[in-house]
């Protein structure tokens, strides 16, 4: 688990509004290559919005976001470049139900990266093996269990060979038995040194793999620290309250 000095994501002074509602306030965040960051916080605190800003699924209104050296502006080319460097896994998987698992995985490489189909399929199979479901390649997403679907979603992102992966509560829509298989996949990824930002409430996962835990509230970063310190010795009152709720449960 090496963290380099190279900066992968650099967010400065970033603000975002929904209409008149100030969702993200003066966000400053630097992520280094190979870092694994877990973002936690109460519901509505802007966690999802933050990571969706990073691949421009949401537009920020002031400040700067630089991903892998590319600043996110309204320039479509930059956005495209950033998006093909950044993979994203959603809470509800968002697999394409009309395509087989394999097609889900090869769609973007073929149409965005212009990879020959054969090669795209080979890569896809490699990643499907990594998430341990190569035998499901020919099935449709609707035929898989939730855990399997989420693993396909991860494989689909990996097929674009992104430098950074974003996860937005990847396990919260899953049945308890299936959470483990997805978390295992993510831990494996982390061990390979992938730069990851993960919104999650799985504190076990945070303790196991994160370099840093960021706690957000009311659109602001309230506290950040390495996991051990964060859990054992939270500084701010809000963090304490939050931790008592989710851990005491």
């Amino acid at each position, binding site marked *: 688990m090496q963290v380099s000095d190279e900066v992968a994501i650099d967010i400065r002074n970033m603000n975002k509004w929904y209409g008149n509602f100030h969702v993200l306030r003066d966000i400053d965040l630097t992520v280094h290559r190979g870092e694994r960051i877990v973002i936690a916080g109460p519901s509505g605190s802007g966690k999802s919005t933050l990571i969706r800003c990073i*691949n421009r*699924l949401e537009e920020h209104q002031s400040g700067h976001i630089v991903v892998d050296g590319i600043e996110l502006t309204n320039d479509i080319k930059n956005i*495209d470049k950033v*998006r*093909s460097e*950044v*993979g*994203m896994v*959603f809470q*509800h998987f*968002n*697999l*394409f*139900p*009309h395509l087989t698992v394999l097609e889900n995985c090869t*769609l*973007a490489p*073929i*149409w*965005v*990266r*212009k*990879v*020959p*189909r*054969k*090669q795209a399929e080979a890569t896809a199979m490699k990643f499907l093996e990594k998430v341990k479901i190569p035998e499901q390649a020919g*099935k*449709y997403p*609707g*035929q*898989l269990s939730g855990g399997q679907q989420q693993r396909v979603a991860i494989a*689909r*992102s990996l097929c*674009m060979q992104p430098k950074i992966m974003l996860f937005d509560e990847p396990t919260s829509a899953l049945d308890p038995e299936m959470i483990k298989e997805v978390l295992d996949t993510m831990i494996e990824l982390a061990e390979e040194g992938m730069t990851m930002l993960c919104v999650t409430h799985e504190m076990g996962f945070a303790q196991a793999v994160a370099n840093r835990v960021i706690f957000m509230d009311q659109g602001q970063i309230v506290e950040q620290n390495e996991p051990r310190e964060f859990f054992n010795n939270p500084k701010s009152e809000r963090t304490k309250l939050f931790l008592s709720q989710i851990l005491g449960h």
Partner: protein
Amino acid sequence: MTDLSVPATTPFRPSMLIYDRRYRSMTFQVIVFILVMALAWWLVNNTIRNLAALGKDFNFGFLWQRAGYDIPQTPIPYTSNDTHLRAAAVGLLNTLIVSILGCIAATVVGIIAGVARLSKNWLIARLMTVYVEAFRNVPLLLWILIVFAIFTEVMPPPNAFRGENPTASMILFDNVALTNRYTAIPTLGMTNDPGSLDLGARITISWATLAFAVVLVAGWIARRMIGAWAQQIQDRTGSRPTTWWMSLGVMTVPSLLLIWYFGLHLIPPTLKGFNFTGGLNVQNGLVALWLALTLYTGAFIAEIVRAGILAVSRGQSEAAFALGLRPGRTMNLVILPQALRVIIPPLISQYLNLTKNSSLAIAVGYMDIKGTLGGTTLNQTGRELEAIVLMMGVYLVLSLSISAGMNLFNARVKLKER
């Protein structure tokens, strides 16, 4: 497999007809069958007795008698000397013409309106809402009458095109005249006419038409082949060659050559006597009916399209964006294939409705099957039983073939699930 028999402990008793699940459903069905048969027998018997009392019979012989009336718009040659059967055929073709044209136009209108209703542009979205609500909540008959009235009241009569200072003028380079009777459009003439193929029953097809059909089909196949070839290249190398100019070429060049070969040109309608001649006069009845059916059905289709697009969750496009797909690609590869599954079944039932609603042609004097077989023929021969049975049969066959097509499609695109 092994023994599937019932435990042998229960010998048959009559009470099992009612109390045993297996026999009860049979008993019930037998009773229903008897009742239905009795009803059918009763109806048929009544009909026979009524026919006898009126001294009539059930006989389709009238179809071969001389019709004696004229029809304004005949896709196949027809005069008043032809039989009622041929008149019915003309009517059926007219029904098909307005239905097919209507389905095509309604789809276009519906897709545009449905997409526009989802537009972020406030004005456009509101306008489309007004359109959709106005057409959905007012009887179709009213729209047909109003559109027809607009044509008769607003358009100029043919003789307004006459004289030194005509009050009306033709449009599209003097090729088309909009009058309150018909829209006169040019016909096609050939300097090098290859003659025509006789299909019997005075129905002919020009060899030129056939040639065009062949060339167009061949062009289409060629286009598909180019597409497949491009796909192959893409699969091999990853980048897709630009093919649009090749596709355009195979689609158009042969046709252009044919046009040149046959010396195809437009013969514009000219005003002669009371009316325009030389061109093709498309009756306003047809145009009004077509337009009203289009706008009315279009409003329903707009709702279907809107619902279909909304049914594809936002997450799908976000996932595609997150993968780096451009909006256009996202639409083609992700949104449309999913939306279509939702859209097509209700869309087809709108086609069905449109076809059935075309029977309102009676309100604007457009002679469809209802106007010929179920109208004038019925009236002149007094064969209401035969004519209506035949007419309903025709509509039924039309509907059933449309819904058979729908079921086939549905079975093919159904999403696979657990």
